Structure formats: C-alpha cells, structure tokens
C-alpha cells in the first residue's frame, strides 16, 4: 500500500475534503470551460477571470474522484494572482511532472507537488490533469486563441 499512500497524500485528501474556490460564478467577466473524461465520468468546470494579464480569480465545480476534484482546488489556489504567462508555465510543468518527464519550477508548484505520485499510475493521469487543462483552455480563450 506504499505506492497508494504516495498517491493519496494528506494534502490531496485535504483539498478533496475542503475544496477552496469551489462553486461557479454567474458573471460574464469569467471565461468558463467544462472538461469531461469520457472513460469514467469525471466532469469538471473551471472559470477564470483575467485582468491586465493577471489571473485574478479561479472558480471550479464538478464531480469526479478525489484526484480530479482535489486538483481543481489545488490549481485554483496556486494560479490565483499569477500572471497568465506564469500560470501557463506552471501548468506545463505540472503536466510534465505527472507524465514522468523532466520538469522545472519544483518549488513553485507548491501543493501541486503532492501529485507527483500519480506518475506511477498511468491510468489516473487524466484525473490529475483534467482541471489543469480546463484552466488552460480558459486562458487560451481569454487570449483569443482558437479553442476547440
């Protein structure tokens, strides 16, 4: 069960049980993206509000496993008040970490480092990245990039 304990770290369980920034806003200054993991039913909606290149607020809601739901809380916590560029950079590094590739900014990932254990569970990578990718999609849309 050691590998399992590495997966279900206290930080993760804490964000799962007591999610921060939870609940969506009915406010048009937010950009909203909903992402689903079709193979299992994880279903996460992320909202971000960017002002002058700074991510001022992030909200989330949805259903899914502990890894998926907690990571929405973690990413919201971490990226609030970061510049869009910093946010993107952290997202990329986080995704690399989960995919077991070399990554940077270890310290800057803070609580998100707790998810390093996911790399040992390839079947759970989607759970750990769905909220992050949904957030990235909101940033893409903010910046007017083409969005699927």
């Amino acid at each position, binding site marked *: 069960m050691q590998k399992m304990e590495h997966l*279900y770290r206290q930080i993760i369980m804490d964000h799962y049980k007591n999610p921060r920034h939870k609940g969506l806003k009915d406010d048009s200054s937010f950009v909203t993206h909903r992402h689903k993991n079709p193979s299992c039913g994880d279903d996460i909606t992320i909202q971000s509000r960017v002002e002058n290149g700074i991510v001022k607020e992030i909200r989330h809601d949805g*259903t899914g*496993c502990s890894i998926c739901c907690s990571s929405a809380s973690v990413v919201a916590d971490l990226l609030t008040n970061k510049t869009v560029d910093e946010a993107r950079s952290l997202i990329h590094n986080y995704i690399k970490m989960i995919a077991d590739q070399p990554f940077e900014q270890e310290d800057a990932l803070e609580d998100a480092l707790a998810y390093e254990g996911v790399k040992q*569970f390839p079947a*759970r990578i989607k759970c750990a990245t769905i909220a992050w990718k949904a957030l990235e999609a909101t940033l893409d849309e903010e910046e007017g990039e083409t969005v699927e």
Partner: protein
Amino acid sequence: MDAHALKNDFTVLRNQTLTYLDTAASSLKPDVVLEAMNAYYHNNPVNVHRGVYEMSHVATKHYEQARRDIANFINADFEEVVFTRGASSALNLVALTWGEQNLQAGDEIVTSMLEHHSHLLPWQQLAKRKKASLVYVPLNAEGRITEAALKKVITKRTKILTLTYVSNTLGYKTPLEPIIKIAKAHGIKTSIDAAQAVPHTPVDVKKLDCDFLAFSGHKMCGPSGIGVLYAKRELLDKLDPLEYGGDMNDRVGLYDVEVKRPPYKFETGTPPIAEAIGLARAVQYLSKIGLEKIANHEHHLATLAIAGLQSIEGVTIYNPTTDTGIVNFNFDGVHPHDAVTVFDEASVALRAGHHCAQLVLKFLEVSATLRASFYLYNTEEDVQHFIKTVASARRFFTKVGF
C-alpha cells in the same frame, strides 16, 4: 466444470497474476480461439464468396460453417444469423431497418432504465425522428423489470418492446418468456439485447420466440470486431437492407439492384472472416463446458462475493439478489475511480463508472459504481482475493481520510 483447469486455457492467466473481474466489459479469449483465427490467416487468408479457386472455396466453407455453428448455438436457422460489427451495431440495425420502416408518429416503443446505451439510444433517437413515444417500464424496488409492470405500460399503440435479457449493471435476468408471450398476444415485436445473456446462459431463440436478438463476440471468449443479429426469417425477408454494396446483391443495374436473400442481404462487403471463425471456435469452447454449468458457477461465485461484501462495513451492494455473475457495489464516501486503483494494485481488474448504463445509475441515485463480474475462468480463490482486497481497501480509505 473445473475453473482452475480452465484458467490454463488463457495465455494471459498463465502469464500474469491477474484476478480478472471485468468480463462484463469484455471476456478473455482462450488460446484455441486465437489458434482458429491464426489457422485461417496462415492457411487460407483469402476472401470468401468471391473466388472459385480452391483456397477461397475452403475459406468460404469455414466462414459459412461458422455461421451454422453460431446459429445452432442459439437454436436459430442459418439464414437468421447476420454478422455485424458488434452488439451495438446489431441493435442499431434493428432500429435503423425495422424501426425506420415500420414505426409511425404516435406509436409507442417500450424500453427500460436497465438498458445499455447501445439498446436505449437507437430507439430514443428513432422515437425523436418518428415522433413516436419512448415509454419506460417502471422498475420494481430492486430495479427489476417485471411482467406485472410491463402489462401496465402496454397500450394499443405499443409496437415494440426493446428490453435487455440480462442487465450489464445489476445482473438481473428479465423474465422474457412470459413477457414475450404477452407481446405476441398483442402483435407487438420484441428486440432483445442478449449481450450479457448469450455468453453466460443457454439461449434458445425459438423457445424465447423473440423477433430480434443481439450479442457480441468479444464478451463470450470470441474476438473483437464481430457481433450477431438474430432475426426471424420472415422479418429479414421483408426488411430493406440498411447498407448496400458488394456481395449483398444478385444483379446490379444503372438505377436498380436485386438484393440477395437473408442473411446476405444485410451483409455488404468483405465480412469479418477471421472473426466469424474465431467466434465459432468460442461457441464450441463454451458448449463443451456447458452453458448451464457456466451460469451456475458464475452465480455461485457472485453469491460468495456478496456474502463477503456484506461482512465488511462501509460497503453498499446494489444488487444483492443478482441472478448472474455480476456484482455491483461502492465504498461509502469513496469515488469508484479511487477504489479501482487500489484493486489495480492488487491485480484485480474491476470496472468503475457508469457501465454505459447511465439510467441505471439515475435509478440507483449514484453517479458511478464498481462492478465485479465473474466468468468461467474465475475461482473461489479469486473471490477470496477480491474480498480481501475490498477489506484492506476499506481500511486504507478510512485511514487516509475518505
């Protein structure tokens, strides 16, 4: 039947430590099935129906013998077995041919919340296109389709019952024989999803007297890429095909075509040759063991598993009276995907999610569940290992704070 010995028929079970409890999603395949397909590919890997040379003649003979064997397996006639891509495709074919050609606005289609999406959605969408009504037979408290409930929803406008034989989520067996009798008495057609029945229990389409019945190869020790639609000959005679093309016609003109007789009329193009041969070998494998025995064995294991689960606190069982090898449960307060990883670490393959039957979960009022499904290659030791894993998972979840 000796499940310990049967395990040896499967390379994956010989080579790996694996407690495979996800047969309801797809069964493992015994070596003999792979050998039968390899024999086709190695000895006469050519097309069928088209060639008058010897090698093609032999391939055609094997392919059509496969159809004969599969027809016998469910007591159908040769002409009544149409090969498809899978059960989903077969079930769609019924809605897209019989449904399209016979239903009208105002007609009623009776279905149930137990249906797999592949049996529900083709009729749901057809009802929309035709402005027909989709009528759900109420399930009883346990979640079963009953004869009594069915009688209540049938009206003069009911044209077809589209029901599952065995629920892939709750493992209940629908009392089809009395239900189909009622349907016949009212001139109502019946489409049966037997994807979870044919692999696990003797199915006799003549005795059932259903009009359409579908199943998949890969859930019954056969290969991927093939399924079967059974339909009564007189219906196949009358229906227009969905797909047109090579091999399903007798004569082609610039603006018209003469189609062949069933089953060929519904099978355009090069068929799944190796797959049909593999499925016929699977059918032979299952018949030799005996479907009654398989059914009893699975149900015995499921009963043991349920008793084991009941002895552990903080676990909810959704189908304690399952009729088959399917057991559905959850750890209280734990999302099934978190649970499944713990099982994975113990080499227990379980299914977590909505099992392509979201309406069942709506009925149960949960968003996802865990499913263990037992088959001929599972043993009492598998059940013990499963229960031990449930117990230690429960302790782990409590410890980490779920």
